[in-house]
């Protein structure tokens, strides 16, 4: 069972780069055009543009549940110098995306904004946000299924604080930007 456990862990590390990819978020970071480490009052935060190659997912996923993919975060940090009430927006998506948001922090699903300001150095407690992409059959075999990104904006002024590019592709052979989900 020791060997089985290690193999299971290795396999999870492999498919975890292409399925339900977890990533860290912090603001203000501007547009994240390349892997960046943001240093501030909390732990160093690696921000990386996400690319997810659907062809690299696990066999069972591709066989049984191929047309739905998801990304997730448990970590949004304020690395700025002032308290900010933030909102989130997924841009340039032409097909349905379900937002599943849970946090020990007040959130308004209508406007996709958090209702209280996040203090400098603070992260949203017990956060779990899943974005579930329901890929239509017409796009399922396109080389580029989604090319957009996630915006963190100041909910009071509308100013963009961080833009994280996200791509869902087929056949590129690489995925990038994943993090260990059990933080």
């Amino acid at each position, binding site marked *: 069972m*020791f060997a089985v456990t290690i193999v299971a*862990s290795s396999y*999870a590390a492999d498919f975890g780069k292409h*399925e339900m990819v977890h990533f860290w978020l912090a603001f203000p970071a501007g547009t994240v055009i390349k892997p960046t480490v943001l240093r501030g009052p909390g732990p160093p935060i690696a921000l990386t543009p996400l690319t997810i190659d659907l062809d690299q997912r*696990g066999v069972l996923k591709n066989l049984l549940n191929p047309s739905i*993919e998801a990304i997730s975060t448990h970590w949004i940090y304020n690395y700025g110098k002032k308290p900010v009430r933030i909102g989130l927006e997924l841009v340039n998506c032409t097909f349905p995306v379900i937002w599943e948001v849970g946090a020990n922090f007040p959130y308004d699903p209508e406007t996709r904004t958090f209702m209280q300001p996040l203090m400098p150095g603070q992260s949203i407690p017990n956060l779990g946000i899943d974005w579930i992409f329901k890929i239509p059959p017409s796009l399922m075999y396109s080389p580029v299924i989604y090319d957009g990104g996630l915006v963190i904006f100041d909910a009071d002024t509308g100013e963009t604080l961080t833009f994280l590019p996200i791509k869902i592709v087929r056949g590129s052979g690489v995925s990038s930007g994943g993090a*260990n989900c059990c933080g």
Partner: protein
Amino acid sequence: MWLKPNSTLVLNRWRYLSFIAGFFLFVAPFAFLVRATLFALGKIQEPTLHVFCYRMPIDWIFGGRYSSLIASSVSTGFIVVILASAFLFGPLFCGWLCPVGSISESASRVIPIPSKYRIWIKDTQITSGLRYGFLVGFIAIAVLVGYKLAASDLSSICCRYCTSSVLQNLSSGIFGNFLAIEYWHTGAIIVLISWLLIGGVFMQGGRGWCLFFCPLGALSNVVHKVGARLGLYRIEHSASKCASCNSCSSVCPTWAIKDDKTIERSLCIACKECVNVCPNGCYSYQKGFKK
């Protein structure tokens, strides 16, 4: 191993009622205990089975992520309570309340597969070896990932193979939130197959997942073993009355009855099925030192 309404069901009625209570206490949309805990602590998280994580605090302890233990104090507190109760009273949570184990065990008991098609390791040493082989692997991964010794080659196996998540999603789906069962990643599919199908329906007793993939269950039995040696609550066997009829072995969901009919404490979940089935009253749940 199947439920016999006139005997098994009646004899173990409190335990099976406890299974139902466990579901309502921990699993959303009900999750009454989770709701009460969050309310008492003034937290506004969504009350689901996830709030009490069975695995991550153990991963954090061995991976040196102590700040996470504090940040997720509800899960940490839950693990402490479960281990303390296992030490004092035996692994009662595993045997009586855990919704993950109770559902797979129930599946095993109600789905009529002939026993010859079910996996059953009768040697308790082999079962224990496999169980603690998993636990050692789990701890090794926690150390290697937590201290970034192999963080790119290995992944913590808490969330990627999460039975709580699969059970919670199934429950949400059954009770009307169909979105919850739309997305399945590879790990969740593997969990569903190995927890309910292989570990549940096709393993004698239906506790395959608990035996071979649950770190909390394995740790609970470690502390139970220590507690039993100190004379705390455990199931005890009296050889003088035993007729070696094997009815105890056939009902034990965790294969914890040894050849000489004594209890292997690293496997026993204090379910009392053996106590209830034994026609000669050889088993008792007791404390104090054996005379």
